[in-house]
């Protein structure tokens, strides 16, 4: 069984937003809502400035608060590691939206259920990459199987320092971030 994960190599991101539009088109995300976004953060004072560009999306946590807090069992962790949702079980109560520390979920008002990034499970089933990864101009987003040592994600994590968002939340995310150059100790 594969163990899917994403690595965001922030050194390569140029905040071009191709991922955001590709995701919306692939998944019919309603106007005004997003499954992924790119955060642009600048610190310092002119001219000593530092910039961080960070793609954010569902972290597909191994310890997922949204799943624990779902009262109907709609949200679940699939065997291959993705946090998914059975639409027909969702009543739109927003417990998952409130419990996600990453602000990764929204209620699809048109269709009446909670929604979020699925790693484009429909594309994975066809052997394709998620839409955001496939169109990522900077090849900043990398997707693959952590169980496969030859996969691009395994290689990226082996070769680079990496972090997760809000590690202290204890959610054990499956989305990893590479900020700096250099191999881990």
């Amino acid at each position, binding site marked *: 069984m594969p163990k899917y994960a994403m690595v965001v190599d922030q050194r390569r991101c140029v905040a071009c937003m*191709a991922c955001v539009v590709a995701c*919306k*088109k692939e998944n019919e995300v309603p106007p005004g809502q997003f499954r992924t976004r790119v955060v*642009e953060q600048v610190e310092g004072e002119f001219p000593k400035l530092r910039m961080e560009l960070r793609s954010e999306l569902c972290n597909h946590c191994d310890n997922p608060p949204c799943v624990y807090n779902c009262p109907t069992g709609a949200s679940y962790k699939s065997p291959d590691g993705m946090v998914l949702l059975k639409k027909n079980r969702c009543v739109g109560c927003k417990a998952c939206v409130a419990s996600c520390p990453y602000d990764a979920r929204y209620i699809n008002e*048109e269709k009446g259920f909670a929604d979020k990034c699925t790693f484009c499970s429909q594309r994975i089933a066809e052997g394709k990459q998620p839409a955001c990864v*496939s169109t990522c101009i*900077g090849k*900043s987003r990398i997707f693959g199987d952590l169980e496969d040592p030859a996969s691009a994600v395994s290689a990226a994590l082996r070769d680079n320092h990496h972090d997760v968002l809000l590690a202290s939340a204890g959610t054990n995310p499956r989305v990893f971030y590479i900020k700096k150059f250099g191999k881990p100790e």
Partner: protein
Amino acid sequence: MKFSRRTFLKASGAAGCSLAAYAALPEKFLLWAEEQGMLKASYVPTFCEICFWKCGAVAKVLNGRVVKLEGNPAHPGARGKLCARGNAGAGLLYDPNRLKTPLIRTGARGEQKYRKATWDEALDLIASKMKHIKSEFGPESVALFTHGTPTDHFLPLLSAYGSPNVGMPSFAQCRGPRDVGLELTFGEGIGSPERVDLTRSKVLVLFGSHLGENMHNSQVQDFADALAMGTKLIVVDPRFSIAAGKAHSWLPIRPATDLALMLAWIHVIIKEQLYDKAYLDAYANGFTELAAAVADCTPEWAAHETDLSAESIVETARLLGHNAPNVCLHPGRHATWYGDDVQRSRAIGILAALLGSWGREGGYFLATRTSLPKPESKPFPEPAKAPLNLGNFPFAGAEGVTQEIRRATISGTPYPIKGWIVTGTNLMKAMPNQKETIEAINKLDLLVVVDVMPTDTAMMADVILPECSYLERHDALAVGKGRSLSISLRQPVVQPLYDSKPGWWIAKQIANRLDLADYFPWQNLEEKIQAQCALWGVNYQELKKVGTITIPNSANPYITAEAPAEFKTGSGKIELYSKELKEKGFDPVPRYTRHPVPRQGEFRLVYGRSPVHTFSRTANNPELHELYPENEVWINSGKAKDLGVINGEYVVLVNQDGVRSNRIKAKVTQRIRTDCVYVVHGFGAASKSLSRAFAKGADDQGMITRYAVDPICGSTGMHVNFVRVEKEGVHA
């Protein structure tokens, strides 16, 4: 029609498994129906026209509707990826504000009042006016303003009609001075896509170019690859751009002083003998004259001009020198800044020559030498009058100098211009000083605009012709001259919506009515494309399936012992010192001149790009409008505090001539110098038919009432206006 899921199920049950008949199937059911296995997607390759990069795209079509676009892996400009704008191509196709039928003006010019017309009526009207202008004033009195693929249809129409007067804003309002500067130095330009060898560069320099925000698909892919490999990036920009955020050195230069920095770099590289002597001996002329001309351009002198430290200038010059020849000085693209732009481009070329990077790994690679035979066509008539689209500029390019046509239209000299045909460009937003553009339009007997959207320029026209979008039409084959030679096909992905028509059909119809049918000797464009494929030995059926074909073994990117460099300059060598310029009375080696600086309380207005918009073309696209609905004015935090402006509040820009902008949000930031403000170009549409873009954000072009014309090639420097920032509702 209201279409609930229940009625849909009933309907699909009744029709068995086939949904092909349900043309009106709402879009929100399409992906669901695909998921259920009721619909099968088809994939059609074509190439994009949201910008000029012309990326190969593959459209996913469900039940006759484009649901997604992806990059074509076979296309060298896309490599399987599309940018945000390319991904949002269907937003143009399905924009409800699209032009739907031909329109004929009923109100005064600019009143935006039109009535629907049939194609026959609109085309007959255009033809009769064009015949009248031809008999009264001569065919030269009709001019064409054009950009992008429509040029392939309308330029032949203009030439067949007998006029040489074409004006493409891509020259005098964009790339012109860059190309002319490099042509004067190396005998040829850098091409489009630019032949920058980013993935092999050890050092990359960007002058104002903000790659990433300026989204040129394959080039930004290379840029990211270079960053990941640890290429040292030097960004020269008054603004902390996304690229500056990635830089090894960010040089926050005082605007309008770039040439001083470049001359100081040349000075240091010569003084410290960091140049490639063998390369210069073999390929370049005029080193002694160059060295003499920059003798005084010390880092200390440049530091004073540029507001950078002399140490940072020396340090970066050495970084360039020590990494030669694997250094890429990106010559930029939109280069019309200050009116001495050819000379700035020359300075970039000279630096590249000193470092030996033309034709070398990590510098500029060489264009393919493979070419395709030209199809035979009927020769165009020789115009009786000399073209007026080149002005008195000795190095104006064949694309024409737009504002010279505008000037002649206003003045009637050297001869009157009575008709304009405008295709693929929004002149009101592309050309500086809108007052002049309006004045010229008011002198015309005929203004025809062919476009997909009711742009500001379309809403000035006498006759508007609705072109279908790039996803609904054939266009000429795109021949890409990058590292290799490639051929790409644009073909209809879906049938044209409304009463819109392809550009080729419109041009041919006008030609038929002007008795010029001989110049369009085919029934439809596909027939012409097939003939071309046959001539070039390309399998058309295969091309239809794959979208792009790359000609094998057509790359020769670097200078080698077997293939030494050839330069098409007068001397056959790289001209560090330009005799051609000297003969025409210009500086043979670039010389720095000081430009005016903003007065107290004023800021220089500089503008640039957003990665989710192209020019003024996409502001109304629903999918892109959502991401960046209106532009913001970037203002330094300290200055904003002095003015009492807080982040996110609306302000008004007032330029040196008293022109006031629409209201625009202030982006208060540390990311910009105190002497300039920055906006993204292309907002503040005046066309009321653009329901999303109308009056959203400020129109930078409206603020650009002054422009500095480059005497060498006629391009218009547009970073020369100064604005005050006022709080909304406060009048001075």
